[in-house]
């Protein structure tokens, strides 16, 4: 089992980071708690991630504050919900909802 990289940034840190991370390759997945969910489109640090739509994305975190922008698709278009998960130890890092089909996560490494 690989070591996890993401930690949820503490409230009130004031730097606007969503996640703190170490530099290196990371794999994220989505898991539906109400219905199913997939990554429909994702852009990390200005580059579109390949092999989407899928339940998993992989990219390499680089130094500094970078953005991961994501669009989700939900099988339950109204009540769909789930979690964003770091694959390492199946760690839930953020909740996701059909009410918010897209998000921009700020990653600080």
């Amino acid at each position, binding site marked *: 089992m690989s070591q996890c990289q993401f930690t*949820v940034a503490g*409230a*009130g840190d*004031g730097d*606007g980071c*969503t996640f703190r991370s170490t530099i290196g390759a990371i794999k994220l997945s989505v898991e*539906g708690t109400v*219905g*199913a969910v*997939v990554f*429909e*489109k*994702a*852009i990390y640090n200005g580059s579109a991630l390949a092999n989407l*739509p*899928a*339940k998993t994305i992989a990219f390499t975190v680089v130094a500094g504050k970078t*953005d991961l*922008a*994501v*669009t989700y*698709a*939900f*099988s*339950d*278009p*109204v009540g769909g*919900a789930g*979690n*964003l998960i770091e694959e390492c130890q199946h760690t*839930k*890092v*953020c*909740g*996701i*909802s059909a*009410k*918010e*089909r*897209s*998000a*921009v*996560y*700020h990653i600080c490494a």
Partner: protein
Amino acid sequence: MQPVIALFLWTAMLAATPAAAQLPDPLPSDCDGLIDLLAAAPAPADRTRVARQLVSMNLHPTCLAEGLVASDKLNADFPSFIRALERKRTDKQAGSSAGTGGSTNLVSKGTTAKVISLAAEYGALTESINKQIVTVQGSLDGVPAALVRHHVFEYCPAGGASNCVDGGVLEALRRVSYAVSFDTSQSAQTVSGTPSASAAGAAQPVAFTADGHSITSAGVRFVLWNARDTVSKSYDEAWTKEIVKSHAALEGAATGLLNATIALVGAVEADPAYAPWQDETVQRLVAARPNRDEVVAVWTGRQHVLAQQLRRTHPAIFVKAADERSALSVYRLEEDAVAATLRKPVATLQYDYKRPASQPSTSTVRLIFDKGLGTGWSFTANGAVELYNQPPPRDIPGATTVRDAQFGAQLQKDLGTLEILGAAALAGTYYFQYQNSPAILNVTPGTPLDGIVLSGLPSTAAHVFATKGNIHIAQMRLVLGSGGGARFPISVTYSTRTELVDQPAWRGQIGVSYDFDSLFSK
């Protein structure tokens, strides 16, 4: 006594203090979920954590956009896309129904094109004369969906809003489809002339009358029962399998939404007023009583404050917010459209009004049953009754209003995408027609029937009829798809007889159809 008192006080304290609700881990990302948590969380540390998440607008850009648009009273409208998926389907019927003269379809299917499809087919199944029939088909949801995709109306899947296309209404309209068939054969239009006055020398004045049957049939279908199962695990698996395929329209909509989100969030976060607004909003939310109404009031007020601050520095922010909502609307429409392809019709009722050239008009009521059997196999069955619209002439023996009863069953196998032929499907069909009343032809002395030679008829004959007999037909049908919306059905049939000729016959039918759904998606 002291231990007893202490135990009593401890027990009383436990009973008086409500158990603190534990925050979920991770926190939800949507504004509603976070507001619910704020309203229920009494501990200041928990409230601060939830409030921080709530003011992180990058996690809920839709909430941000809605707040800005509501504040600005800006009305959004909506961009365009559709279905690349539609091009790959081989289960849609694009041609005319059996019995219209030029058709390759021995059985009808429940699925038709969403916007419009056009099919030209040549051949005959139960009829004795080959005809060329062009059929236009579509379903009623095609038009409002196109209006959403072309910025005219907003799409609201859950309904409840005004000035938008309700998801439930769209679903209801999707159940109704129509078809109009045109007979392009020469016989569809005849002009008869009779002397209108006495001849003047070699010249004869004539009154011409036209008998036009270019529209040979019109029909409407209503899906009675859809295979709709959106809650089971098997549906989730089928949905996931479908959604991860390449859907050009959905991908385009997702790109549009992502770009709009990045532009909106980037502009808001770059504003110097944003971070102070976050800090003050957190303080006010934490200070609010744990009561949903109060939390909502504070949050709504703070959203308005953010909008006012942004208006001063970024007047265009409201356009960006409207763009995000607009892009989201199209994205949700495309997402729903993919899900709708999983809801195959199971039972469909069809009504056809037919007025073929030189024949009495009829009405057919047909019940269609479709069932996917897995791994590319599907089964379709039809039962129908055809009635003469006018009681047939009494001097035709055995003629009644009930013309015939029909039954058809088809087993189809999708062959996938073949290297040379493209998307293909092979079907085997059996069709039975119980001929309750003889097939009748209307004749006018001196006016020939296309493809039929009648000799020795008395000048007073107005109708001719054939001997009755049940019809059995077996068919093999191959549908080839180009992948661009065009399909080419080719079939070979063996029939024990036709409606007019009491002899077995081998025949071939061919057609071409174009599904304009893919064209309207651009």
